[in-house]
């Protein structure tokens, strides 16, 4: 009895213990299963401050650099365009694009100096300030900003000329008198005097005498003298390459002793400041209180107020209602990293990104009969369509021993044959839902020199002709006579995703039809760029988005002086053709007119025959915007537009709440199912115990 009692005592002590465990388990299970109800939310953002206007966007990979002298990608310009203001700007609404004053009082005065020399005089506005940054204090000032002076633009031009900076746009600026000589003097001095390079870089520039054609008569005035006519120079002053840069930032942000690199820490004059930059996760731009448009709204400076001239479409879209209002409208831009396209698009549909492209997987759901589906219309989403000022192409490295110029007519016929095997229309249908215009030449619609009637005979599919050309090229049936096997080439791609690889395989499969075995080498974008720089490639695919709306900005991609391997320029095909170069040099300094059109036609004919590229397509952009986003108008080029956008935060908040109510009954159902499974067993156990 005592034993039983003790056993019973055990049981008495044990049962509550078991019950307690059971209770804890049940409570924990309940808490876990019902956690969706406990304040859960799919909102990826903390609550914005009341009344604050935040624009939400995403990026796939962080840019390699934000240095305005070297950043040359659209992903970099998304940041540098907002942080660095430029001397000239594009009119936001006018089409074709038109330049207007930015940081300067008026468009530059142009003076012919004789001997072909031309001078441009820029006058900066007074009282322009840099964004607040510690670099100024660390460089010896007693404050965190300073006034922008013309010498800062001269400093930035010197940086572009400095070979150690590695700017990709040295060539267009070498039209400035003494530009190349400055770089040479700098290099010579650095090599001659090892101590020289230890001096601050702005002192080095001053010590070698600056660029002869860049003069600053006063802190507001900048004079640029060109040694030859180059009308496109003005477009470069609408890009961040020529933005004023404070020497203090370059000096302080050297990446040493815990300081960030200037590559990752921009200090500029723009309407926004980069307040957070985590390459792996997110970046945040905030409205700069130092921007002249914010500090001096009374100036009504052309690029600091919303434009009042627009077309009928602008009027219909309500953009002109903003005419004359001070910019910017958005207080903060929050950009999150989204590597995968499907989650990114789904978050847009949930209202957590304000704008989006359309992913292939959802294209049919979103677009029906070339218009928005009723479901999208009901959500207040709008569709923006525009042909981008770009060109996508497959390039051949003409320095290569097999596909390049070394084999003369053989390699030309090989390139022609490969051209005739690619069905671009099919590519667009399969991979881009038909969103693209077939490219016949480098020039896209909307750029002077585009001829809608021109059809390139090598941008259509003709496998019989391609096979004949392969025989003429010395590869009958695609067999390389030196190996007795299929001709083997490599295709370099910077897209390692499954989708990207599938797209490249489309080309390699097409070439297989004419017997060529093309292997894919996929790396990331930076390594791809490195390969191009080093000439380690045969075939590649690339695209080009116009910097400015001029045919020169497309044909220069094939100018020999832009050769990638020799000069580090964007001519990845390393195309070098004397006749083409001569025509290009004449065309680029000529105003639009019949002679220029004829030169463009002749250049196009050379490209048609030589085939350094297989022209693929010009993208047709389909962009989706939520109803709360205002003032979206694609410019077709990589130009900053954050400051023009506006949002209606109240509508966004209401729509997000409406669209994202959690559906919680499955949690209850799951819990009930668990209970139903376990409960009979527990009942049986308890009965057995009794």
């Amino acid at each position, binding site marked *: 009895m005592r034993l039983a009692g003790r056993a019973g005592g*055990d049981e008495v002590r044990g049962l509550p213990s078991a019950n307690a465990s059971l209770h804890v388990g049940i409570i924990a299970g309940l808490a876990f299963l019902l956690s969706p109800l406990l304040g859960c939310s799919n909102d990826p953002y903390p609550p914005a401050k009341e009344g604050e206007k935040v624009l939400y966007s995403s990026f796939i990979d962080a840019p390699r650099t934000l240095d305005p002298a070297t950043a040359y990608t659209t992903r970099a310009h998304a940041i540098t365009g907002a942080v660095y203001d430029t001397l000239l700007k594009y009119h936001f609404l006018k089409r074709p694009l038109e330049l207007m004053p930015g940081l300067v009082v008026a468009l530059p005065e142009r003076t012919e100096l004789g001997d072909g020399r031309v001078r441009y005089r820029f006058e900066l506005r007074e009282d322009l300030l840099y964004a607040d940054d510690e670099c100024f204090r660390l460089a010896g000032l007693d404050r965190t900003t300073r006034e922008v002076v013309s010498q800062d633009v001269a400093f930035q031009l010197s940086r572009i000329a400095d070979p150690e900076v590695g700017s990709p746009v040295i060539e267009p600026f070498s039209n400035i008198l003494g530009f190349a000589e400055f770089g040479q003097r700098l290099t010579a001095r650095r090599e001659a005097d090892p101590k020289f390079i230890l001096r601050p870089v702005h002192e080095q520039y001053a010590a070698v005498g600056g660029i002869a054609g860049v003069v600053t008569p006063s802190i507001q005035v900048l004079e640029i003298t060109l040694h030859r006519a180059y009308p496109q120079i003005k477009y470069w002053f609408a890009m961040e390459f020529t933005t004023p840069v404070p020497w203090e930032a370059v000096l302080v942000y050297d990446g040493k002793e815990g300081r960030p690199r200037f590559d990752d820490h921009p200090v500029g004059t723009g309407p926004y400041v980069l307040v957070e930059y985590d390459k792996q996760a997110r970046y945040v731009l905030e409205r700069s209180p130092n921007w002249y448009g914010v500090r001096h709204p009374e100036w009504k400076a052309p690029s600091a107020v919303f434009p009042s001239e627009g077309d009928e479409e602008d009027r219909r879209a309500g953009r002109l209602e903003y005419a004359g209002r001070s910019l910017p409208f958005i207080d903060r831009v929050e950009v999150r990293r989204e590597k995968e396209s499907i989650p990114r698009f789904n978050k847009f549909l949930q209202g957590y990104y304000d704008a989006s492209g359309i992913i292939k997987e959802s294209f049919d759901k979103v677009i029906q009969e070339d218009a928005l589906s009723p479901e999208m219309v009901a959500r207040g989403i709008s569709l923006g369509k525009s042909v981008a000022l770009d060109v996508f192409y497959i390039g051949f490295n003409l320095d290569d021993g097999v596909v390049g110029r070394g084999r003369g007519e053989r390699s030309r016929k090989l390139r022609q044959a490969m051209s005739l095997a690619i069905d671009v229309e099919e590519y667009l249908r399969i991979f881009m839902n038909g969103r693209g215009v077939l490219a016949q030449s480098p020039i896209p619609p909307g750029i002077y020199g585009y001829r809608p009637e021109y059809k390139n005979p090598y941008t259509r599919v003709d496998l019989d002709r391609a096979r004949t050309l392969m025989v003429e090229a010395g590869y009958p049936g695609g067999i390389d006579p030196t190996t007795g096997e299929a001709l083997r080439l490599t295709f370099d791609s910077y897209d390692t995703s499954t989708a990207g690889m599938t797209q490249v395989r489309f080309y390699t499969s097409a070439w297989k039809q004419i017997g060529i075995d093309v292997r894919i080498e996929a790396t990331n974008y930076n390594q791809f760029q490195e390969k191009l720089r080093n000439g380690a490639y045969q075939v590649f695919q690339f695209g080009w988005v116009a910097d400015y709306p001029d045919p020169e900005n497309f044909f220069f991609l094939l100018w020999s002086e832009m050769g990638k391997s020799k000069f580090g320029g964007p001519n990845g095909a390393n195309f070098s053709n004397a006749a083409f170069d001569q025509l290009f040099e004449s065309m680029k300094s000529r105003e639009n007119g019949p002679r220029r059109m004829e030169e463009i036609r002749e250049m196009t004919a050379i490209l048609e025959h030589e085939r350094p590229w297989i022209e693929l397509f010009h993208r047709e952009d389909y962009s989706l915007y939520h109803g709360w986003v205002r003032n979206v108008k694609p410019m077709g080029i990589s130009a900053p537009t954050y400051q023009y956008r506006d949002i209606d935060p109240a509508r966004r908040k209401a729509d997000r709440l409406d669209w994202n109510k959690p559906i919680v009954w499955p949690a209850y159902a799951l819990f009930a199912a668990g209970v139903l499974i376990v409960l009979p067993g527990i009942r049986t156990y308890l009965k057995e115990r009794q």
Partner: protein
Amino acid sequence: MGAYVIRRLAYGVGVIVGVLFLLFLLFFTVTQPDDIARRALGEKVSVEVIEQWKVNHGYDRPLWPWQDWDDNLLFEHYRRMLTFDFGVSDADDSPIIDRIRAGVGPSLSLTVPLLVLGILGGIPLSLLVAFFRETYIDRTGVFLCVLAMSVSIILYIVGAQYLIGKVLRWYPISGFDADLLMLPRFLALPIIVGLLSGIGGDVRFYRTVFLEESTRDFIRTARAKGASEPRIMTHHVLRNALIPILTRVVLAIPFLFTGALLLEAFFGIPGLGSMTFDAIQANDFSTLRTMVFIGSLAFVLGQIATDLSYGLVDPRVRFE
């Protein structure tokens, strides 16, 4: 015990030295520095460019000490790894140690709750199915476990993003925010996926351990004494099954620092797993080498910690 610990540490150091040598053979001899450069720069790059790249990345030295005692890759490899001076990424020249520092927090924020919740969920569930052994609850539990183990984690990820993130709208589909108020929201979905994909294996393992323990003589004695089944399970079976449980848990702890490769990559968590994933995609050998070394270090430390922890949970274990 002191002597035992010193001996174990000495073994650990030996293993690390060996692992580093294997890493060296793998990344520098089987894969020559020229191959690393060519993988980064391309197959047809000129010799001059390869040489310059090797100089920039420290691969220009001779491989072995007998080629140059003062300046060779083997010693440099050991020096760098053992002093945690990992150099720069082969892909984008950013300092690897900075990326590790930035990534360890996000990784731990995912892996620690995953481990803790895995234990807290797995052990009670295992006890439950073991408690109801040979009943329909046991059979249903084992069936569900096998089912859970059979499904690819990728399917869990895509399915959870669609079902929980998009359709049910419980949590964000992907993303990360280190803010403490926002963090649980972003971690919920990867944790649910991690638990679902791991719990099948855990429950089956723990169940086997518990069933084995529940047939021991002392359990029969407890039952004969009249102890209740719940008490037997929680007080006698669970306590005596702690050694295999501990082995599994303590071994997992060091790997918390290396992150969860697929979960981080697909949910956009900027941790070390995501960094390793990016390094694999980008042929970033210096980063991969570092992550393999850290993984080995974690494994060795985990082994030592496991051995030492036995003594804490089982007084019969003596360190000799």
